[in-house]
């Protein structure tokens, strides 16, 4: 087990360098003039240009610049072209996106998993059928439609939640975006739960547990649940990583300066250091989330052994 973790961590390190290098290439291979982009329409004096070129090593070769970036990334010293400390943005963005993702996941667990269990227990009933159709509809709506719709209905029309994210109400104004984000994984979570639960309800060991004279509550609540949760927890772990990285549209609509929102802005500004830093962090989040999920899998299912 220990050796497996070490191996996975080493793999993760390689993945990190590989992924960040690719992004670095993509970001700077396109050419363009970041200094001019920064200044907009205004002319840039030769003096300013020389200073910025020096500061950001723009004259060095590509590899050297990647290494400079790595050094700054790990020492937490990164400056964006506007001179701002990149990590200052990153910290608050991570927090915001993390909160939204957490709200989304909790919503998914509480509603999606519960509904999935009920649907599996009453398979073929009205509840099951109607919730299946509903999830189909929800899966079909892209967030580019769902987010503004929810914003209009709950924010503007019924005034249940704030329309946009505000600093004054840091939690309440994140609820609606969190729910919108969660709706997408909710449908998948419900279907997965239903399928997993239903398969396990028919398993031979359930018959054994019943024939031991255990109550239905214990058979379902302990034997079936424990087995059904394995794929669900795995899904939720991966999904948490996805939600962290995939909230661009939702954050855009609700005007949230989270990772998605800032990344979007930085790309528009051609702000290389910021883009690379955000993407690198997302890579780290994915790697860690996947490792945690794999380890969790081994904890949940004793048949899984990592060598």
């Amino acid at each position, binding site marked *: 087990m220990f050796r497996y973790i070490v191996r996975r961590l080493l793999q993760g390190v390689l993945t990190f360098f590989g992924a960040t290098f690719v992004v670095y290439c993509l970001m700077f291979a396109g050419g363009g003039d970041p200094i001019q982009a920064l200044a907009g329409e205004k002319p840039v004096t030769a003096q300013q240009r020389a200073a910025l070129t020096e500061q950001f090593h723009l004259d060095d070769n590509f590899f050297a610049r990647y290494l400079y970036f790595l050094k700054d990334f790990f020492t937490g010293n990164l400056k964006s072209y506007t001179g701002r400390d990149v990590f200052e943005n990153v910290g608050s963005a991570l927090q915001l996106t993390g909160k939204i993702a957490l709200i989304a996941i909790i919503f998914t667990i509480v509603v999606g998993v519960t509904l999935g269990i009920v649907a599996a227990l009453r398979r073929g009933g009205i509840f099951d059928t109607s919730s299946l159709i509903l999830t189909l509809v929800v899966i079909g709506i892209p967030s580019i439609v769902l987010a503004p719709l929810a914003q209009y209905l709950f924010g503007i029309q019924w005034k249940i939640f704030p329309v946009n994210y505000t600093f004054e109400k840091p939690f309440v104004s994140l609820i609606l975006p969190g729910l919108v984000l969660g709706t997408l994984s909710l449908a998948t979570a419900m279907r997965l739960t239903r399928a997993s639960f239903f398969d396990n309800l028919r398993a*031979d*060991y359930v018959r*054994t547990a019943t*024939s*031991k*004279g*255990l109550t239905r509550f*214990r058979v379902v609540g302990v034997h079936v649940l424990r087995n059904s949760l394995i794929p669900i927890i795995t899904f939720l772990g991966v999904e948490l990583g996805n939600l962290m990285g995939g909230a661009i549209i939702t954050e855009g609509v609700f005007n949230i300066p989270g990772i998605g929102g800032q990344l979007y802005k930085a790309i528009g500004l051609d702000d290389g250091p910021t883009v690379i830093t955000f993407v690198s962090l997302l890579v780290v989040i994915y790697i860690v989330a996947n490792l945690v999920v794999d380890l969790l899998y081994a904890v949940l299912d*004793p048949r899984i052994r990592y060598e």
Partner: protein
Amino acid sequence: MNEHLLEVDNLFIEFHTRDGVSKVINGVSYHLNAGETLAVLGESGSGKSVTAQAIMGILDMPPGKITRGRILYRGRDLLTMSKEERRKVRGEEIAMVFQDALSSLNPVFTVGNQISETLRKRKGMSKADAMKRAVELMDQVKIPGAKERVKDYPHQFSGGMRQRVMIAMSLAMDPKVLIADEPTTALDVTVQAQIMDLLAELRRDLNMAMILITHDLGVVADVADRIAVMYAGRIVEHADVHALYKNPAHPYTKGLLESIPRLDAKGTELATIKGLPPNLLRPPTGCAFHPRCKYAQDICVTTTPPLLDLGGGRTSACHFAKELLDGRI
């Protein structure tokens, strides 16, 4: 007539499937007295397991449906009991061992946890006491190193050991009746014999009654007192083990006996029963065995043979049972 410990009385079960109604059990009756072993024999699909599931109350309903009959345990009908009463019979009065121990055990709990579960949840034993008892039970079914292995998971055991875990688990509540549904089918031949010996020994030591379900006539001779032979959801012959071996009173039993490999008849070709088991969605008219029976006459196609009482607790559902017994055909 004295009361039997367990009695299945004229049971009818059908399954409602997409293709229609499958009449799986068609008037099965058998009984079991305290401390004795009844072997239920028959080829795949004859309804052995479904009958056992009906006794245990673990039949899938739907699609299954019990349309007629009674299942009496100590004179009380299990089929009309409340759910809660029925649950208490399971495990404590009647326990069951299943065919495939790997899929029948829960993969994510230790064997100790599963063996001791009923003791904790139904008898209110403490965790430590229940675990101690689990080790004793594992010793009793001769699992080597029980104390160390009690914390292992089912997949860490060999097939034979897993079946022993299953048996230990079924014994936890001291049941009066043990139903073993093909407990050795998934195992190697040598291991099969060991498990059969263990079951026979346990039954004797614990004075349980046992229903041994199998499709292998060879394994039951040493273990069972009586045999009930099933075909297409009916008991076609019921007899004392020795009487049945010596002289079968039904052509199907005779065919089964002829298909057992014998040491003294090495080299001769094994007889097998020709043809396929009947389709229960459209069962044959008359005697369900007639398309495969070499003694079949016109009456077999038109008339269902009644269960003939041949005396001495012996019955046969064949129009020509007496002739067969007397060696006239």
